[in-house]
């Protein structure tokens, strides 16, 4: 499927000014971001702008720093005690370390990791967990929210009759979609997906991809994937990482048809390394 309107060609590496709180066209921005795990450098001087309301794919071989980049957006990187972050990460123009309240930030940035985690509570409570923590207790609103999130995650049909089932008892693929539903439950502005299709069958994957295209109008979607074709199908923009460095970034069609770097061309053609 080809996007009907080709995205505008933006310079996604040079920082655009807007300043904190000002109107900026980029939703997430990384300025000279460097992340080290102990002595190992995972990301090295990354400058990148992620435009609003687009699907932004990050591709690259293993150990290229894709997941680390994603973890920086909502500061999940803090859970890794050996990680040292330097540089700036701006969400809506605000520095995630200096200007954002970390809990507020995580509510605004939904995150789906490749390993599915169903929380040890009912399916309903899994999805309602985060809204409740944010202060939503109205039963009717919660019911509607849970249903819409489960529908978007393509899980509603399978669990609508047993919403009281333990989240940990679902199959791997179902848990993965439950994780997606949970991430959507706070109506985030940014949705980060790390290899979301790893435990899901191809048909469901396609349907979720359709949903993501639909969600694009409401949120910015950052997609880390190993499936080069998935990036090509879905993304408006694609960034290619290798060994912790940003090699190339641009509109997906351009990156896939006229890559500027030889490394990129070799990777998308499958004869990397």
């Amino acid at each position, binding site marked *: 499927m080809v996007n009907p309107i080709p995205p505008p060609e933006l310079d996604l590496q040079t920082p655009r000014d807007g300043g904190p709180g000002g109107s900026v066209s980029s939703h997430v921005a990384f300025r000279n971001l460097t992340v080290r795990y102990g002595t190992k450098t995972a990301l090295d001087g990354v400058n990148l702008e992620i435009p609003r309301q687009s699907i932004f794919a990050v591709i690259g071989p293993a150990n290229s720093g894709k997941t680390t980049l994603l973890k920086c957006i909502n500061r999940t990187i803090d*859970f890794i*005690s050996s990680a040292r972050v330097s540089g700036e990460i701006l969400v809506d123009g605000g520095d995630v370390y200096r200007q954002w309240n970390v*809990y507020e930030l*995580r*509510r605004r940035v939904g*995150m789906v990791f490749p390993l599915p985690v169903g929380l040890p509570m009912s399916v309903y409570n899994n999805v309602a*967990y*985060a809204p409740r923590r944010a202060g939503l207790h109205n039963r009717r609103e919660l019911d509607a929210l849970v249903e819409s999130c489960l529908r978007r995650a393509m899980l509603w049909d399978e669990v609508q009759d047993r919403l009281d089932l333990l989240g940990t008892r679902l199959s791997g693929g179902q848990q993965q979609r439950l994780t997606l539903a949970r*991430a959507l*439950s706070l109506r985030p502005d940014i949705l980060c997906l790390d290899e979301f299709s790893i435990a899901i069958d191809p048909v469901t994957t396609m349907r979720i991809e359709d949903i993501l295209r639909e969600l694009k109008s409401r949120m910015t979607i950052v997609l880390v994937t190993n499936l080069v074709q998935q990036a090509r199908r879905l993304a408006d923009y694609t960034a290619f990482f290798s060994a912790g460095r940003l090699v190339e970034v641009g509109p997906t069609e351009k990156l896939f048809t006229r890559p500027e770097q030889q490394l990129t061309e070799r990777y998308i053609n499958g004869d990397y390394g």
Partner: protein
Amino acid sequence: MRDDVPNNTPPKYLLAAETAEGAVITLGSADSWEELLDLLAGQPENDGVPPMAYRLIRTAETEAAVKKKPRREYFANFRGAGGAGREDDGTESAPWWGLDHAAANLAARRFDDLPPLAVREWIRIRHKEPFTPGALERRKRIKEAVAEYVFLAMTAALVIPIVAILAYLVVKAWPALSFSFIFQNSEDSQAGGIWAPLVGTFFLVWISLIISAPIGVLAGVYLNEYARDNWFTRLINLAVVNLAGVPSIVHALFGVGAFVLAAGMGQSLLAASCTVAIMTLPVIIASTREALAAVPMAFREACWNLGATRWQTIRTLVLPNSISGILTGVILQVSRAAGETAPILFTGAALFTSFPYHLDQPFMALSMHLYAICTQLQGVSDSVQYGTAVVLIGLVLAVNGLSIGLRVYLRSRKKW
């Protein structure tokens, strides 16, 4: 065993077979070692019952008599299925597959550059089924069985006498055990009736529980959920370990110094409860930490990802999923507190005191009562003493059994 070697024209070398019945049948003769091995290799394999063993014999020119014992003994599989050859030092070597293989192996042997067989000597090659234990394996197996029985005996030497002693206690206590023994008081503390000390123990346990459970559980939460891995946390861990190891009588001294005297509680139920509470704190801390650590990290990270704060995660996810383990630890504390004597000896327990109890007054406890009627008071009948001991043990074991039962039940309905 009889050697059926004919002695009319004595040959130099003989090949003989041993049958299952013990007879030795000569199969052929040869003039040289090599010829003898060819003869061995040429024997038919695997038709009908194979012989038990082959003998390679060298006789004198004049007489066929040979020594009683073979010079060497080897193992091979006569059906060619792969047995085990045997080195001279007794270790099993690469298997000899059939008679061809055996003959080839023997031919390759130099026998220390001596002639392969001296006069009147012989070699036996025994049939061995593949994958059957050899002498070494049999020895190993015997050793293993001996080891198992020795360890079993050691375990039995621990468990049996103790169980026997406990049974003996029950038998001796039987005459005294009755409804009135447990639920009534006697005026002159001689004839039994342990209701007052039983109630005292009950109060002691509950008050110490009220003090130590919140502190202990929250300390466990801190250590497992908040504490980073730094020198301060290590210091706390060290303190917990040492708090668990401080002798109970030292706790009693602390109770006297801190609660009875410094805090002005005097010898009272409250002072004793505080002392016991601090003593049982490490049990609760350790079991709480264990229960919390059993909740996988991935669940916490999933919650943090959704913007839940640390405390929200603990309250809504970690505690509900570890409450059973925490409860087990708390019950363990109860059983320990019920049996302690030393820490209440000088902080509030009395030999005899009026009923009912007050927080600021001394009280009677079952453990203290047992110590008193056993060593301090004269003329208490044996069965009353045994009865008190049995009730105390029964109380502690019942509480403990409850904790074990709870653990087993909750393990059966694990949520992940």
